[in-house]
């Protein structure tokens, strides 16, 4: 009878141990990465902001548009610090908003983003806007683009900085 209860305790302890080991490896396998999105708009009269979008926009990635007052887009939260945290294998959806504070159309483009640290580049895919295209921001209106950040299952980097340079096309 006594030996039986010891076996029971042993059994419970082993289960507890296995549960903790699984939890530990589960946490390891599901690491979180914080992506810090930085935007430099040089000397342009632009206000540049980002916000999280809901997964409802996943079929609208790459969409660009302009609005002046009523914003009819599914925003989940603003990103004042430009940071977005994603678990492994998680996709995040982000709006880029550019407000043109001038009184004229401004044609602009965005240079390919720099990744820091560079060695982390295999760990994610960023469907952004730095593909050599030229865009136009209308005066006193807000231009937007829907972007997608896919964190890979293999990404072990805790913090990744992605910097874009926005510049004017004058011709």
């Amino acid at each position: 009878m006594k030996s039986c209860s010891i076996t029971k305790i042993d059994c419970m302890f082993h289960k507890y141990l296995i549960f903790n080991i699984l939890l530990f490896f589960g946490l390891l396998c599901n690491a979180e990465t914080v992506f810090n999105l930085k935007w430099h708009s040089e000397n342009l009269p632009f206000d540049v902001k980002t916000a999280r979008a809901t997964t409802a926009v996943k079929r609208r990635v790459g969409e660009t548009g302009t609005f002046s007052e009523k914003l009819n887009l599914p925003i989940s939260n603003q990103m004042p610090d430009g940071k977005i945290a994603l678990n492994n294998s998680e996709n995040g959806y982000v709006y880029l908003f550019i407000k043109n504070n001038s009184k004229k159309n401004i044609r602009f483009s965005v240079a390919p983003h720099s990744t820091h640290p560079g060695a982390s580049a295999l760990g994610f895919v960023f469907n952004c806007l730095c593909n050599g295209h030229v865009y136009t921001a209308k005066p006193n209106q807000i231009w937007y683009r829907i972007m997608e950040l896919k964190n890979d299952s293999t990404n072990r980097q805790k913090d990744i900085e992605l910097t874009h340079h926005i510049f004017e096309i004058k011709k």
Partner: protein
Amino acid sequence: MLYFLTFTLFLAQASKALPSSDVKITWSYENFPLKINIAEVAEEKKVFISETNSFKNIKDSIIKKKLTDNIIRAEHKTSSPFALLIENTTDQDYYFFAVPHELNPHHASAGHYFECLCNGRVFMVPANSSWYRIVRLNLNDSFQKIKKFEINHKIVGLKKNEVMLNYKDRLYVP
């Protein structure tokens, strides 16, 4: 008179020439001991963009000449194919990937389209072989007519076991 005609002919030819930019292709390396050079492709050989392979003898290959200054003259509104070349004289295979390229100055990027190697794929350079990839640079109507600029890539070396464990599906197989 002959000098005048020659000079006129020269001016006529010069006006026909497309504007071009000198583009320096530069590399930095992390955990990767080999070097990448750019090379001209033999004109008589059929060129397939993104063709990636390796060879033992340059005479039997698609490569015509290694360009030691790593500068290509890219004509605007046309595409310029060339090759990336890595010579591996060691007895070891090397694995690597390329971080997406950056341009210097940044504003040279509008209207540039470079089909290169920074596409999330992992490549393998076999031992005692030369590896190559055919790439193409296209400067289209939106390009800002910058005479000289640089395209910089960072090459990151990977261990074989790391590739087999995490990136087997990304390994480029010719």
